[in-house]
């Protein structure tokens, strides 16, 4: 049990000693991405090999004085695309291996763990350069990691490793050296803004809760990361669960709350498991519960799992869901800070926001303000995905440009594609194009261009993406996820989707564009909650930047990216066609005619674009005309 500050100091000292005693640590990435690539088998294999090698004391649990070697599961190491990722750490020297197969483990163990050799073939390579240390890899070197600092370095399931990484120093400082008001002030002065997308000043929110008359208050964490294409919060919850909890505990102390709730998306089973593990361990050690570290501060943590409703990412819907109700937003005011969970004053912040708090308390507001921009201090995590060379989890100072993110960190486009646009902010956001490559990404600037920073999904698109189809995709998402409470959102998104489907289906008219804009403006201004208010943004943004593509779909009945099925034209190349007649025989609608041993012909008015002919042509003679 850790009952006093002195107990915690001793425990931390032991954890530090233990960390220093390792001769070598094998760090196996256990983020969702790497586990999907098979990292658990790699971990098991290392354990097996380590156990089988005589002369090496292997240390699995977190005690034992003669520990030499540690095999650890860490949070996301970043370059998800190249998983399973493994780091071999000896003192300050770290080697990053990529695409590690269980069959590689023996060689790594013999050459890099027992020996000091580096296995060239497993190293990270980019543009002809090979990188040994993770910190040299451009993808990582160009990032500034505060929230993700521990991800990939420490065992995400061990309190001792968290303590050794400096964990709970901020909480101690807050609890013993600061008054609650001072903490709120510090967070306020740091300029930290809500990382869930809204960008509301966190300190101001805390102040509002702190000054409520009602004494029963709640601290709630929004881990319902529903934006398709975003996985930053999931990575923090599973990669550094203790940090999130520490941030919430500080918030609890600052606003005099005794209960914290984390609402986690149902699709993140690993986040739930790691958070549960962390909470159980903290309760067991006495760091959560009553009279924490011998003080009057009591704090209890609860986990609620989402049940597949995107709208629950909205504050009042989220608290309704925790209370056991349908997750539907309500009219505000009263706001969540006044009447949130159980109609009590509630601090509701996002995962990344809380994860920023310990560092701010420990290093001060001035330090935090030195990173990022004047109006948006600090860093932002993004999940970088789509048609880009290096997909993965990144953290950069606010104000970094898209060019730096896509070309320096992301390594440029995949398969030599041409950059077309980046979708930022998910279904509530918009598109930025090559004209915006040098725009600094911060809350205000991005908004100026009709998009939002949002929670941090960055989906990079190349020439093979149809922007009209992307708009339809997002609209079908928000339409499906509309809770149905208010008419503008429920009916408006439905009608907008119908128009978009008509356009990608080749039946659009020019008037549809005006109708779309009119509906979009209505939905945006009349909807009850953020979901509806932002639902038209992808449409408005693409209409604004890629209007010519809409017009092409409507007037020329052409989709230049060859994505929209209804607008495809299947054509037979006479140079390759041998006149075998297989296509005509297979065509389900009899759209192909011809004479044997001569070039066949497809009647595109009859054609249903099923692609059977193309898929089965032995001579690759059939192609799609844009």
């Amino acid at each position, binding site marked *: 049990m850790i009952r006093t500050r002195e107990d915690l100091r001793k425990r931390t000292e032991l954890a530090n000693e233990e960390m220093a005693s390792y001769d070598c640590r094998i760090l196996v990435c256990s983020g969702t991405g790497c586990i999907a690539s098979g990292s658990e088998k790699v971990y098991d294999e290392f354990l097996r090999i380590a156990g089988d090698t005589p002369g090496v004391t292997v240390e699995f649990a977190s005690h034992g004085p003669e520990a030499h070697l540690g095999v650890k599961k860490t949070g996301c190491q970043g370059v998800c695309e190249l998983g399973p990722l493994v780091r071999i750490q000896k003192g300050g020297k770290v080697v990053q291996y990529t695409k590690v197969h269980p069959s590689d483990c023996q060689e790594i163990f013999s050459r890099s763990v027992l020996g000091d050799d580096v296995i060239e073939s497993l190293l990270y390579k980019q543009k002809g350069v090979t990188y040994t240390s993770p910190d040299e890899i451009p993808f990582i070197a160009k990032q500034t990691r505060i929230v993700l600092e521990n991800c990939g370095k420490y065992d995400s399931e061990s309190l001792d490793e968290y303590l050794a990484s400096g964990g709970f120093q901020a909480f101690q400082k807050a609890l013993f050296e600061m008054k609650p008001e001072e903490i709120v002030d510090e967070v306020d002065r740091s300029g930290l803004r809500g990382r869930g997308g809204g960008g509301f000043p966190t300190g101001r929110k805390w102040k509002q809760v702190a000054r409520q008359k009602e004494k029963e208050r709640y601290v709630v964490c929004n881990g319902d990361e529903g934006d398709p294409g975003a996985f930053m919060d999931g990575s923090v919850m599973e990669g550094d669960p203790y940090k999130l909890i520490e941030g919430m505990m500080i918030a609890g102390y600052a606003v005099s709350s005794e209960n914290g709730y984390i609402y986690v998306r149902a699709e993140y089973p690993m986040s739930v498991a790691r958070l549960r593990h962390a909470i159980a361990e903290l309760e067991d050690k006495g760091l959560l519960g009553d009279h924490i570290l011998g003080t009057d501060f009591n704090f209890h943590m609860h986990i609620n799992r989402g049940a597949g*409703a995107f709208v629950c990412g909205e504050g009042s819907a989220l608290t309704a869901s925790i209370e056991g109700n349908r997750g539907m937003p309500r009219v505000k005011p009263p706001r969540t800070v006044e009447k949130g969970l159980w109609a009590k004053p509630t601090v509701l912040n996002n995962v990344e926001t809380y994860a920023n708090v310990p560092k701010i308390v420990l290093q001060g507001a001035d330090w935090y303000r030195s990173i990022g921009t004047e109006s948006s201090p600090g860093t932002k995590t993004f*999940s970088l995905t789509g048609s880009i060379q290096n997909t993965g989890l990144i953290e950069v100072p606010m104000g970094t440009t898209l060019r730096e993110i896509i070309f320096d960190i992301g390594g440029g486009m995949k398969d030599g594609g041409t950059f077309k646009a980046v979708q930022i902010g998910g279904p509530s956001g918009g598109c930025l194009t090559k004209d915006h490559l040098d725009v600094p990404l911060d809350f205000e600037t991005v908004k100026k261009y009709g998009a939002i920073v949002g929670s941090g999904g960055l989906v990079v698109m190349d020439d093979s993406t149809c922007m009209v189809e992307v708009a339809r995709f*997002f609209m079908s998402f928000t339409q499906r996820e509309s809770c149905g409470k208010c008419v503008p959102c429920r009916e408006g998104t439905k009608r907008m989707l119908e128009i978009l489907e008509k356009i990608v289906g080749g039946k659009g008219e020019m008037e549809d564009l005006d109708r779309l804009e009119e509906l979009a403006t209505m939905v945006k201004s009349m909807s009850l909650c953020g979901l509806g208010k932002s639902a038209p943004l992808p449409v408005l943004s693409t209409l604004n930047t890629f209007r010519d593509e809409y017009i092409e779909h409507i007037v020329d009945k052409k989709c230049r990216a060859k994505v929209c099925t209804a607008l495809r034209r299947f054509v037979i190349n006479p140079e390759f066609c041998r006149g075998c007649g297989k296509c005509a025989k297979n065509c389900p609608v009899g759209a192909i005619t011809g004479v044997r041993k001569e070039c066949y012909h497809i009647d595109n008015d009859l054609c249903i674009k099923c692609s059977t002919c193309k898929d089965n042509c032995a001579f690759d003679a059939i192609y799609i005309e844009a």
Partner: protein
Amino acid sequence: MLDECYYKKADEIIAGYGKKPSSLIPIMQDIQAEYRYLPGELLTYVAKQIGISESKAYSVATFYENFSFEEKGKYVIKVCDGTACHVRKSAPILEAFQKELGLSAKKHTTDDMLFTVETVSCLGACGLAPTVMVNEEVHPKMTPEAALDLIHELRGDRND
């Protein structure tokens, strides 16, 4: 009428969360995790036990996409259609599953109760798009061909 053991299991689950209205969602989640669906009679029972009306319980259960009153297959295959997966062509993967298993947008579960195919908005493994989740295991970098291999593999493990 459900077998007695269903109610026993429900009692156990209810005891874990306490007889209060706010326990409804976690109780339903655990029941569904146990039986792969939410038996209607059991929901009625739970409502009574935790002190809410039957209509309230149903209104909540039908609001959330995760709850299903229909029995699901042994393998629930969730094809991710999040933005990153969509951009990296997830649609043909869904088609491949549906075609192989004779399923459609309306029919989600095979008659032998082995497979259920659904889409999901994002699995959070976007770096490895397109992805598919079978029960709780994520499969990265899928292709229509890999989808067929996966089905064969899963069918195989029923026999051993």
